């Protein structure tokens, strides 16, 4: 790697745009971030446990997990705010695990933005430039560009306390992007915003990332946000990275029970693996399901609510796995119905299946006997 890491690449200089990272033609194929066996312990607590992860150049990557799963600590290790207890960490091929934050070519958008309250918007944005010795007209030009990029023109002389949450968020983005970081880290950047603003900012952040072409790594506990925004998702729980994949891969083929349950809504039908192609459900039926798990392993079949079809008893398509039950509850959502189907069976077998049906179909009444079926390809066998 060349030495002037933190400063803009040649592309940015050429077209004069702020924070234009390496264009597609410049991408070297070196991963933006590479982690091998990264662990972080705080005393006896293992916050991050042997994480291996590769994030590509220009990727929009989401680290997703419940609070306390280690996702923020992982982000802080990339930023240099926490130093890994073990493992290797490289940014664009450069080993940085023990580097202080001011030497790393990354910038962070903090959860509560952490804007400097004693500085104006313009001073906040100029801070990183000043610390790297960029002053005067050149600094003014870059600050103006960053301000325009996040559409904050006219706010330059305000203090952070005079801005709304959404505006503070933009200042935080501009303050980071003005430095042309090679990787932008975002710690729950939308967490402090209300729902409507959050959805607006989701679209805006995605557009911004496309525009600047920088690798974005984004921490969130909101699975919908992660699926909607990112190119790939890494799901974490209890310090471990459980699955990495595109939103579709993670949603349609969850690696284990936790991921299936955490990403979207699903029905987990408990059972035991019978063969590599069948699962015996506690509810009674033996259903077709591909799995690598050994026969006899306790496992569950993850069936998404929108993949379940409801039929009259005995009207199920030939060969499709099905379970008989009774409508236990029906909720009208406008664009869809959500039914809860009670599946009979004794003891362990008793369960419910949540079904989501488009409103076009006829409404079913509570108490109506039905058969629930699905296509085996839309389901996944998951174990702990």
């Amino acid at each position, binding site marked *: 790697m060349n030495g002037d890491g933190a400063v803009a690449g040649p592309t940015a200089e050429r077209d004069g745009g702020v924070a234009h990272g390496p264009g597609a033609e410049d991408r070297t194929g070196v991963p933006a971030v590479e982690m091998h066996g990264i662990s972080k312990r705080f005393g006896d607590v293992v916050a991050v446990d042997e994480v291996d992860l590769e994030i590509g150049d220009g990727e929009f990557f989401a680290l997703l997990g419940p609070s306390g799963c280690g996702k923020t600590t992982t982000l802080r290790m990339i930023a240099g*705010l926490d130093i890994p207890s073990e493992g290797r960490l490289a940014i664009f091929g450069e080993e940085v695990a023990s580097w202080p934050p001011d030497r790393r070519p990354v910038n962070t958008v903090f959860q509560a933005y952490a804007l400097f309250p004693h500085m104006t918007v313009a001073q906040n944005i100029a*801070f990183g430039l000043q*610390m790297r010795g960029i002053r005067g007209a050149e600094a003014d030009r870059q600050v103006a560009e960053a301000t325009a990029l996040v559409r904050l023109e006219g706010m330059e002389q305000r203090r*952070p*306390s*005079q801005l709304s949450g959404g505006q503070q968020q933009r200042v935080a983005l501009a*303050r980071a992007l003005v430095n042309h970081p090679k990787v932008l880290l975002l710690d729950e950047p939308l967490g402090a915003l209300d729902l409507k603003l959050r959805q607006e900012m989701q679209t805006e952040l995605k557009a911004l990332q496309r525009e600047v072409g920088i690798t974005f790594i984004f921490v969130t506990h909101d699975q919908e946000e992660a699926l909607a925004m990112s190119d790939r998702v890494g799901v974490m729980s209890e310090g471990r990275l459980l699955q990495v994949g595109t939103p579709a891969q993670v949603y349609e083929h969850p690696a284990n029970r936790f991921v299936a349950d955490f990403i979207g809504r699903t029905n987990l039908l408990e059972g035991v693996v019978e063969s590599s192609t069948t699962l015996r459900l506690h509810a009674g039926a033996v259903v077709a399901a591909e799995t690598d798990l050994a026969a006899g392993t306790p496992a569950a079949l993850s069936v998404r609510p929108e993949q379940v079809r409801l039929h009259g008893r005995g009207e199920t398509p030939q060969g499709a796995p099905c379970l008989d039950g009774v409508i236990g509850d029906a909720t009208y959502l406008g664009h869809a119905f959500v039914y809860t189907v009670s599946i009979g069976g004794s003891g362990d077998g008793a369960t419910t299946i949540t079904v989501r049906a488009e409103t076009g179909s006829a409404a079913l009444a509570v108490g109506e006997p039905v058969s629930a079926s699905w296509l085996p390809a839309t389901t996944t066998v998951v174990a702990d």
Partner: protein
Amino acid sequence: MSSLGTAGAKASARRLLKANAWFVFAFLYVPIVVLVVFSFNDSERVNVWQGLSPRWYGEALGNTQIISALRVSLIVAISSTIVSTVLGTAVALALDRYRFKGRRALDGTVYLPIVIPDITMAVMLLVFFAEAFKLIDTFGPRLTLGVTTVALSHIAFNISFVAVVVRARLDQFDRTLEEAARDLYATPWGTFRRVTLPLIAPGIAAGALLALALSLDDVVISAFTAGPGATTLPVYVFSTIRQGVTPELNAISTLMLAASITLVVASLALQRPRSTTP
């Protein structure tokens, strides 16, 4: 009947509390008002009113003893404030930031000078200086009590006050701001200078003003640790009072009162958490 009775009792209780508040207020402030009013008395005698005049202010400021005492007071106050502000801030930062051996012990004892009675502190320091001088004198130099010892003593108690005030400010300080500065390429020193220091500056200034006021006011410790020629203004006032209160003393006291009030009010204003709206 009974409800009427309680209503009446409530009303009279309210009246009593109100009267008490006024009484306490008067108890605190009437002597001050009397002092200020009589400092403008034209009479030779303190307790005979003879008409308004700034005469005694002129006399006080023309008195060379008073001026020299004022000079000593200012030297001691300013030097002890500067030193104790730097050291007190450093102590507050160390206690807030670092986990080191003896931290808990220091945390507990740094506030001791605030609660120790002045007279104990004074005797303590006098004994300390006497013993220290005896030791140092065996190596040659002959040290005596003077302006330096008074200043050192004031530093000794002022550090605690500065540390308390600065720590209160640090408690409200958001450490993420320092992380943000580090993330934005600031070195540890750059972070302190550009982010930490400006944000805790009001606390430091408040501590410094408090230290200045305490130093200007102190009598007991200054009287014990001052040698000849190192008389501070409060010590001078205290010594002349034995010859009876003169209108001149009223004038000096009023001036000192005004200075103290200004410093304390400024200190409180700086400590008040305020919104960052300019």
